């Protein structure tokens, strides 16, 4: 599997204030993205996610370090030939209609004539924006801008798609549609680099992740390696038995009507809970073992830093 994107020890500091003072934003960021995977770039707000992406795309010049895209130095415009990019909170020329907007980018990418019209039609349909195609972008909602922005990012049939917080501003249906589109991109053999602070998105679709905190990568690897299969606790919802009966077996989190939500930490105590319920003529409504989530790992890492 080839490396599509590689960052080696990238440093960047911004000069801030009237008397400029350097504030380091990236402190030696290194990671790589393999061909054909969905790579999640995770971090809280202000950790340096967008700065990293801007460095990759040459919108910002790193102070030190090296970035290669398809083996080519990122400083060369040619390196971006096969890259599609959707920025966070996309801003576009609001005086253009959706169709004109895509036509403009197609022209820039050297797609003309009938091929251009075909592509515009195809991508408008893909992102569900056919009906708003002839409306000026200033009349678009945030979610609509996100969709047309994704179409723009895919116009050149990129081998690497970089998405900065792509699900922000989308409603639940929009998020699902976006997830499906991203998974489909992978199926088509494209590589997706996805930054987000919404862990659920990343957990559901990413193959590998890198976690950035205060400008440093604190962990990276396959999602399966990062998240252990170990059961942290089991959530049992019980009906018809008072919560007080389970005090010695687990932690009762909430009660609603005659239902009790119980957190059981030791595996051997689950059998005891089940037999107690049977004995008291109650019923088990659900029993869900909870394994570690990306969120747990993330929260622990942030706390330990």
């Amino acid at each position: 599997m080839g490396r599509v994107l590689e960052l080696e020890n990238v440093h960047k500091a911004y000069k801030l204030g009237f008397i400029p003072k350097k504030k380091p934003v990236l402190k030696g960021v290194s990671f790589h993205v393999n061909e054909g995977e969905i790579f999640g770039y995770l971090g809280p707000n202000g950790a340096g996610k967008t700065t990293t992406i801007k460095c990759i795309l040459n919108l910002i010049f790193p102070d030190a370090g090296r970035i290669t895209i398809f083996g080519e130095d990122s400083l060369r415009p040619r390196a971006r030939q096969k890259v599609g990019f959707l920025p966070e909170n996309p801003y576009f020329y609001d005086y253009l209609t959706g169709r004109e907007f895509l036509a403009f980018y197609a022209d820039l990418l050297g797609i003309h004539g009938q091929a251009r019209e075909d592509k515009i039609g195809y991508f408008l349909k893909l992102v569900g924006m056919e009906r708003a195609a002839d409306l000026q972008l200033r009349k678009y909602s945030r979610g609509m801008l996100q969709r047309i922005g994704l179409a723009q990012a895919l116009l050149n049939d990129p081998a690497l798609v970089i998405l900065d917080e792509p699900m922000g501003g989308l409603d639940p249906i929009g998020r699902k549609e976006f997830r499906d589109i991203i998974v489909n991109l992978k199926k088509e053999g494209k590589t997706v680099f996805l930054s987000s602070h919404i862990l659920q998105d990343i957990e559901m679709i990413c193959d590998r992740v890198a976690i950035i905190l205060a400008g440093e990568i604190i962990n990276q690897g396959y999602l399966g390696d990062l998240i252990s299969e170990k059961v942290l606790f089991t959530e049992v919802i019980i009906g018809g038995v008072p919560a007080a009966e389970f005090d010695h077996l687990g932690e009762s989190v909430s009660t609603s009507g005659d239902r009790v939500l119980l957190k059981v930490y030791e595996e051997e105590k689950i059998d005891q809970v089940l037999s107690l319920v049977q004995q008291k003529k109650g019923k088990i409504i659900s029993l869900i073992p909870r394994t570690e989530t990306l969120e747990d790992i993330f929260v622990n890492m942030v706390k330990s830093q």
Partner: protein
Amino acid sequence: MKITTIALNTFKEAKRDRVLYLLFFFVAVSLLFSRFLALLTVGDRVKIIKDVGLASISLFGMLMAILMGTGLVYKEIDKKTIFTLLAKPIHRAEFLLGKFLGLVLTIFIMTVLMAAVFMLILFLHTFSVDWKILLAILYIFFELCLMTAVALLFSTFTTPILASLYSLAFYLIGHLSWSLEMLIKKVKSGAGRAALRVLYTVLPDLENFNFKTEVVHNLPLPGKLLGTSFVYGVVYTAFLLLLAMLVFRRRDFV
């Protein structure tokens, strides 16, 4: 091709910008005003109309170049539209040139429209066409191209307000620097004269593009003068664009 696409988009933006139509409207009003002034003047009415007409084309063109030119790059950065644009395989120099040519195209079309209105008004007064007027307007256009490059240069590193002020200062200096040339002739040769000559070379001389007096008063227009003025315009504009590219080349878009 990329430059053309960006240029045409810049033109489209200007076309959909209502300020443009407002300026055109003002030019029409000012041309009518010249007619009114002529009514109050004793002497050659046509000369007054020509004078005021050419001056207003120059003034409104300059306002357009400065007001739109200073926002040209700043707006792209401020509205973050530049992110998706420069993420495509485009050189920053191509982006700048595209923006410059887009505004030059806009100004060219506006100048043609203003000239058409002006020539019509003049024709209604004289029932003849003075083609020399077009030559004066052509050189006004060259000056506007240079001013667009000035505005673009300032727009690459500062806010539109400051860029407008700097461009205006450039314009004023450009129209007053000819007096330095007069001074050079009067100063005795030596260090002072050399310093003045250096200063005059560095500072712009926008009077090189001013053929209004010659045209209005029907004075001769030597071909050599027209030629050097043209070359001066091309070289100075290219120099400013090159400077803008250098500033823009390593700029971070935070």
